[in-house]
């Protein structure tokens, strides 16, 4: 069954813009990205939108629909009332380039700041062996498609541009957690202290665990419960817990 739906789509660039009204046909089974494509094919051929796989796996078509950060390709039109006006805007935490396209280079800069996996010195290529129970936690984080919806919704940078310098955002703190939990990462042996880095370089203390990153994650990764809070606890081990410090001095044990 088809119907005529009303849309408001943000059109503009870094110099300004506004919400433009459109009326467009919606067919049964369609997602918001289908409608955006129909707009491009009909009323707005120059509408800029970033997209790729249309299957929720490339993380390209992130936008805000009725004020909520979502993937355009994974938001079914059936969740809206046919009489409702659907508003589509670009991500509001990043600089806008044109229409629905934003400059997400902040995220790539933050990605470069995370020290990469350090291979263990005693193992060569092809010699890595890991048990499933040791990598389960890490594999959840590997589901990330880098859509940056979590980075966009996190109030630390969304509401405070000045914090972008000090705060890496949930996606890259999750990356730090992933590497710190990795059974073969030899960062400590190489002199890289990931826990100190999480606190001092990536701004973990800015996170006040209000869980918006988890709420918007299209891969349903429990970012807060499984990455950020465990990382906070690891930072407590490293920096705030005198008993753990004492234990590490006496027994020289490693987790």
């Amino acid at each position, binding site marked *: 069954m088809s119907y005529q739906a009303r849309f408001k789509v943000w059109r*503009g660039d870094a110099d*300004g*813009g506004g*919400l433009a009204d459109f009326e467009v046909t919606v067919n049964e089974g369609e997602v918001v990205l289908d409608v955006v494509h129909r707009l491009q094919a009909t009323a707005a051929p120059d509408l800029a939108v970033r997209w790729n796989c249309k299957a929720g796996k490339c993380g390209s078509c992130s936008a*805000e629909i*009725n*004020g*909520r*950060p979502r993937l355009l390709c994974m938001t079914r039109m059936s969740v809206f009332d046919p009489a409702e006006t659907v*508003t589509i*805007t*670009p991500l*509001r*935490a*990043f*600089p*806008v380039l044109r229409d629905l396209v*934003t400059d997400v280079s*902040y995220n790539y*800069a*933050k990605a*470069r*700041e995370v020290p990469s996996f350090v291979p263990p010195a005693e193992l060569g290529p092809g010699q890595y062996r890991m*048990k499933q*129970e*040791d990598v389960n936690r890490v594999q959840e984080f590997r589901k990330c498609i880098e859509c940056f919806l979590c980075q966009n*919704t996190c*109030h*630390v940078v*969304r*509401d*405070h*541009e000045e*914090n*972008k*310098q000090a705060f890496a955002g949930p996606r890259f703190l999750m990356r730090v957690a992933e590497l710190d*939990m*990795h*059974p073969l990462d030899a960062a400590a042996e190489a002199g890289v202290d990931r826990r100190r880095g999480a606190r001092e*370089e990536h*701004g973990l*203390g*800015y*996170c*006040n*665990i*209000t*869980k*918006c990153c988890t709420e918007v994650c299209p891969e349903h990764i429990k970012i807060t*419960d499984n990455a950020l*809070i*465990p990382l906070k*606890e*690891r930072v*407590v*081990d490293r920096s*705030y*817990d005198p008993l753990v410090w004492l234990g590490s001095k006496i027994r020289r044990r*490693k*987790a």
Partner: protein
Amino acid sequence: MATGTDPETAAAGHAPARGVHHSTRAAIPAPHLRADRWWLSPAVTAAGLLAFVVYSTWRAFAGADYYAAPYVSPFYSPCLADNCVEMKGGADWGLVGSWWGLSPALLVLIFPLGFRLTCYYYRKAYYRGFWASPPACAVPEPHKKYSGETRFPLILQNVHRYFFYFAVLVAGILTYDAVLGFRDADGAWGHMGLGTLVLLANIALIWAYTLSCHSCRHIVGGRLRNFSKHPVRYRMWGWVSALNARHMQLAWASLVSVAVADFYVYLVASGAFSDPRFF
């Protein structure tokens, strides 16, 4: 430090627009475009927490009607001051001595209060509900500056695990109190009343909430890098993780149950209600 992430400096004489109204972002006058009832969840959370704060403040300062043999209110156990009523066989230890003149509940409530105040779930709840930081996802917070938990006083949230240790002790004592509920008012075993059930339900929820704590999850096994080398801790971590997934529900359920248990004891102790006895 980062390439390309230095904040912009404001032009002289112009205050920079904040947050979603920053000059580089899409020019949208509305602070947010959410059309759903986003305010409902923080409002309900704040109302629930406020109701508990009001109730517990009244009961903590009352210093009366907290013991109706064999039941003791969870707000008043263990009783650490000399000014407690006599609790036959109960956790009535008077460690603080006779100089304490205020309600004995105040001495012990610091620990569960600290545990809940620094709890990762409650932090989310009151940051959203009371401090609007943020009130809801993609809804701007009203504060001009934000430093999160990097500075005093919020950096003290990192002591959560120490409150967890105390919470385990308190839960142990409340378990003892619940077991004492199987005695009658004269101290003879083999009794059970509605109060016994209330205390048992309360302590079950308290334990579930305490053990589902994120710090507990970390201590039990989360801090390990190789689970395969610690199979027992891995299994325990799995159990705690299963509980941890319901931490929010357990936080609320145990908050309600502790208030209900206290109110039940209050009703029985004040004579407003007579404890129905099963055997």
